[in-house]
């Protein structure tokens, strides 16, 4: 039999105090973030990998907002990752290689698509939701593959030239700037997510996850709240994708050569994300099937990641 806890009114923390206690930084969190700077000194040859891990972490964070907190089970979030990656890549290709504004544009593009698809997503549940998100992701894969005049199709987007980050740091082969750029974006969006989930809005999302029908009764319109977090999460996934754009471009790249690290950099946004975690060993020939397949790989790797980022939050 569960014990009934009676807290005296004077010791019970108020809602503000409760949220403030949750937002307080713990020592282990500070140490964790400081540790993320260590690759600059300890593993300077693996900074490209480290930046891909940071990108995947940011993508996982965006999935966590809707899946872990709001309870929207999605299999198609790579859609926004891809939109972000292509937006940033295309903008840079067309002559505007400024990195930070590229992120903003990618967030806007992904957020807009998230807003439009959100009307569908927030109206279906269970299997239909899983299948519709999966369907949206697959439509995006098909679209990116067939619109090869725009995206380069299965070969990936070519000719992306990024300017120096903040006019100072060049995106070089070593990935110093790339890791700093990815880590900075990850940290900023981590702070934003932390703020969101520990706000009254974030609490209402958890309530909606637990009981969709009951939350409107206590003044939280479920559908509107879900739509809002879906757009936020889509924009974040777009930023994660956009962080892929400044990949180093080796001049003598020939795909299919013995050294696969030297393969032509591909911006097949939908597939490229997990190369840090999941797809690390899965560098294969770029055919449509492969892209579709790896999209699943990455998406699910990210879902597993939820646990990790959940713990981090």
């Amino acid at each position, binding site marked *: 039999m569960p014990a009934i806890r009676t807290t005296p009114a004077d010791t019970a923390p108020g809602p503000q105090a409760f949220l403030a206690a949750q937002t307080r930084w713990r020592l282990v969190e500070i140490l964790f973030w400081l540790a993320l700077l260590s690759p600059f000194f300890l593993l300077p040859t693996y900074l490209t990998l480290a930046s891909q891990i940071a990108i995947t972490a940011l993508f996982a964070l965006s999935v966590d907002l809707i899946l872990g907190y709001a309870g929207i*089970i999605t299999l198609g979030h790579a859609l926004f990752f891809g939109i972000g990656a292509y937006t940033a890549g295309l903008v840079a290709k067309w002559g505007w290689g400024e990195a930070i504004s590229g992120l903003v544009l990618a967030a806007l593009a992904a957020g807009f698509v998230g807003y439009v698809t959100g009307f569908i997503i927030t109206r279906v549940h269970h299997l239909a939701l*899983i*299948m519709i998100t999966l369907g949206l992701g697959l439509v995006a894969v098909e679209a990116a593959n067939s619109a090869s005049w725009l995206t380069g199709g299965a070969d990936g987007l070519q000719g992306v030239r990024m300017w120096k980050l903040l006019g100072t740091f060049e995106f070089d082969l070593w990935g110093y700037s790339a890791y700093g750029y990815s880590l900075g974006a990850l940290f900023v969006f981590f702070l934003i997510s932390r703020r969101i989930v520990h706000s009254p809005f974030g609490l209402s999302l958890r309530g909606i996850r637990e009981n969709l029908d009951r939350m409107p009764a206590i003044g939280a319109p479920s559908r509107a709240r879900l739509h809002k977090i879906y757009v936020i999460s889509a924009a974040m996934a777009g930023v994660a994708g956009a962080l892929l754009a400044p990949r180093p471009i080796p001049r003598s790249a020939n795909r299919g050569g013995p050294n696969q690290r030297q393969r032509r950099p591909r911006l097949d946004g939908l597939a490229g994300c997990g190369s840090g975690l999941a797809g690390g060993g899965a560098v294969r020939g770029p055919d449509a099937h492969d892209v*579709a*397949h790896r999209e699943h*790989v990455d998406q699910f790797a990210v*879902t*597993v990641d939820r646990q990790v980022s959940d713990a981090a939050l």
Partner: protein
Amino acid sequence: MTTQIVGILFDGLAFGMLLFVLSVGLSVTLGLMNFINLAHGSFAMIGGYVTLTLMREGGWPFLATLPAAFVITALISVAFERTLFRRLYRSTALNQVLLTIGLVFVSAAIAAYFYGTVQQPIQVPDYLRGSHEIAGVSFATYRLFLLVVALFLVALLIGGLEYTRFGARIRAAVDDQRMARGLGIDVDSVFAVTFALGSGLAGLGGALAIEIVGLDPSFGFHYLVFMLIVVAVGGLGSVGGSFAAAALLGIFDVAGKYYVPALGSFLIYIVLIVLLFVRPRGLFGKR
């Protein structure tokens, strides 16, 4: 023109029947236990590799390997059901999805380890090759065979579900699990048997699919999407719904790729999204 349409309808229907055999088990188990088994495609892949191995190493004739694919897949699946899946029946959809998709990865890696990542062709017997010409339209013999097998299975399944005692138990458990338990039906063992039968059918489908779509370690991923579409569109736990959905999907897919190749693969996904948005429970779903 007419012959072309008939040809496309026939090819689409044959592909649809293949999808039906692959996915009908998933539909029933999803409807019965609400367990989202994404590893269903892996069971189909097991069936395919069973047939391949028996034909290559054992020298079995093709037709004799089909029952073996059914039985071995069913046995393997029930072992998984008893040890892993049953722990997650009361769990959230996310945990079920994660466990079963993990199994798909494992199975793909195991298949790649033993058989390599290349497509594995098989040599079907002579009497299943070639084609028959009827009224100016040529019908591939293997697809005719597929059609006959699928129609036979539909009759068997509908007959079994509608007219046998065990079928009545399954239907009762799908409709209202708690009530069925209350009436003394052992839902767990009904489910174990249903699960084995459904996975066995997937194994049979995988064996039949080699000749049409090939077999490689990514089979479990690639056809999972088609299976889920069939199940979601057909409605959970409905054999007739799965049949109609599979036939529609097959015909749409083949016709779309033939007439509007630029739009080919979009078509089915867009149809899927629109259909599920309008009818979240599928075309024939009751619950």
